[in-house]
């Protein structure tokens, strides 16, 4: 859908939480993909002026250029809650969100650096007492105190939900890709540093972090103890065994049997 097609919602204040991402191939800092999609989703609802961007974390020059990537989407300013790397950013974000008065907070499903557990939106929603929906593909409409959204399910499926506002929502790869970030607005945009309280993340202090170990997907589990069975399990071709075979039926009767199974499995919509 072209973003121009969506009606802008008047009077709605939207905030997007953004983080510094990491390019999967080169590891260079960038705007995080899911976060950028969240911003894009916000821009489908409101004009850039009514969209607040919020980042909690450090603001080194390298990270700054990544954060400017969000400004390059046409938004004038980004608030940076200055937080050291070992801080728990949730209290700071919560306080800031309460101050801002946003009714809708958009978040990428998870970050691309650090723990990236995807917990922040859940903790915020819990603390703020707001609605939460995850995995949004699209916000279809916002109407007063609620909004209608499409939630992405696995296997490309979609579900329509009605969500009471205020709400925190998370966005992942199912949502529309973020618009290109433009150099001019990114350069001009303002990074507003906000000093705030710092809560140390004590729990994470004892963690060991290492580069991810490659983990090939499981092949077959051959449990059999006997050599013959291990042999057979490897060399035999896939056979179900015990299936129902219907012969001598009319095509209609065959079709009915199939239809019954399709209905039972719930794949027929």
């Amino acid at each position: 859908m072209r973003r121009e097609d969506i009606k802008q919602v008047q009077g709605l204040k939207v905030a997007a939480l953004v983080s510094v991402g990491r390019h999967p191939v080169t590891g260079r800092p960038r705007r995080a993909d899911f976060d950028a999609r969240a911003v894009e989703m916000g821009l489908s609802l409101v004009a850039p002026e009514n969209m607040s961007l919020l980042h909690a974390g450090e603001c080194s020059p390298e990270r700054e250029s990544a954060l400017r990537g969000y400004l390059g989407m046409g938004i004038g300013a980004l608030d940076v809650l200055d937080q050291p790397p070992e801080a728990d950013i949730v209290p700071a974000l919560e306080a800031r969100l309460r101050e801002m008065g946003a009714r809708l907070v958009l978040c990428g499903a998870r970050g691309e650096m650090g723990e990236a557990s995807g917990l922040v939106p859940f903790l915020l929603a819990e603390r703020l007492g707001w609605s939460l929906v995850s995995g949004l593909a699209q916000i279809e409409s916002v109407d007063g105190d609620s909004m209608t959204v499409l939630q992405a399910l696995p296997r490309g499926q979609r579900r329509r939900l009605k969500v009471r506002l205020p709400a925190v929502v998370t966005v992942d790869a199912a949502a529309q890709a973020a618009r290109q970030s433009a150099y001019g607005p990114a350069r001009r945009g303002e990074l507003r540093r906000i000093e705030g309280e710092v809560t140390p993340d004590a729990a994470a202090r004892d963690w060991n972090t290492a580069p991810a170990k490659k983990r090939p997907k499981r092949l077959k589990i051959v449990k059999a103890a006997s050599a013959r069975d291990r042999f057979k399990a490897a060399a035999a071709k896939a056979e179900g065994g015990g299936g129902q075979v219907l012969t001598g039926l009319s095509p209609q009767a065959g079709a009915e049997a199939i239809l019954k199974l399709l209905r039972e499995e719930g794949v027929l919509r």
Partner: protein
Amino acid sequence: MNDIVRRDPRSEWIARNRLHPEHDAVLARMGGGAPAAQWMGPNGVIRRDPHAVGFIGPNGIRRIDRSGAQSAGAGGAARREAAAAPARRRVDIDTPAFFIAVVADMPGGRLSAHDRDLLGLARQLADAETDGAVLLVSFGDPRETGLGEAGVDRVLNFAGEQFEGYAPELRLTALGGVERQHAPRHWLFPDSPLGGAELGRRFAARLGERPATQVWQIADGRCTGRGAAGASDITRELPRIVLALPECAEPVADTVHAAEAIAPPAALPQALRRVEDLGAVAVDPAGVALAEAEFILSAGNGIHDWDGFHQAARVLGATEGASRVAVDNGFMPRHRQVGATGTWVTARVYLSAGISGAVQHLQGIQQCDKVVAINTDAGCDMVKRADLAVIADTGEVLAALVELVEGGRKEQRNAA
């Protein structure tokens, strides 16, 4: 039925006397007991039925005794048992010392492979100390029959329509009830977009517990999970709540458990319902990637009416797949090829139309839950693999399916 027994004492006598020249012929004629393996033909040439040699011995194994001392009669009662699968060890835990709770996704009411891996993990945690029990918490209408084999000691099912579909707030309240009642030592959730990922995080936030997410390994009281979008591994003390990835452990294979149902907490506090499920939205099946399609209609050599096939896919809302032959013959594009040399698919239902089932193809559909075959050849490998096979003309069955579905939809519309 006439229960008067007819007898032919002479034949019986010959049958008993294996040295009688007509012994085998009589046995063959009588048909009872072991069929004769050889007898004299009318032209004075020995006739043999090599298929009739031997009999099933007392161990259920074919036995040949050329001395004739033993014959079928002796082992007549023997059953074939050799084929039976090795029995699993039964484990019952009467009074659980503690619980490891697993909140399974159970798509369609059955355990997913991911769920089974989690149960395997739960089993490890439960078995680390005596009388630890695995508690499965499930929602909606359960259709799984193999919970005991999957390693479940106790099942706590929240049945009822209100738990179906997307009801995270209600489910959260329910889990809260379980927490108060049973206080499991650990809570395990599949970190999957099917629901576990969200429910687990909600629950952790509700309890104020810091969970470990994207966990793929638990060992020695520590767990390792992915961080930084899969780029790093974070190892830490095992927390109470764990959201684990597929293949975090091997599913239970050696034991079978009670899977005894226990009652859910009687009264749950009223959940605040801020999210309402308005139902599924139709999506274009052609837009769904073959590898992740839920429902695939796949075409092979047996398809002659290609328009009919495409129409069937459209009407059924299935993603289209194809066998290699259909692709090589130019009827389907290369990216639609299913199999070890094409795309591996994971559909919940794989409906194969006119595919005989080359070994590469069968390999590629290994992970499909239900395979349905339409084929004219009852002996083909696809039919052997299928959970349901209809032996009939593929085009006709598809046409009938289309008619049934469209007819049904029309009725619904008229009724509405």
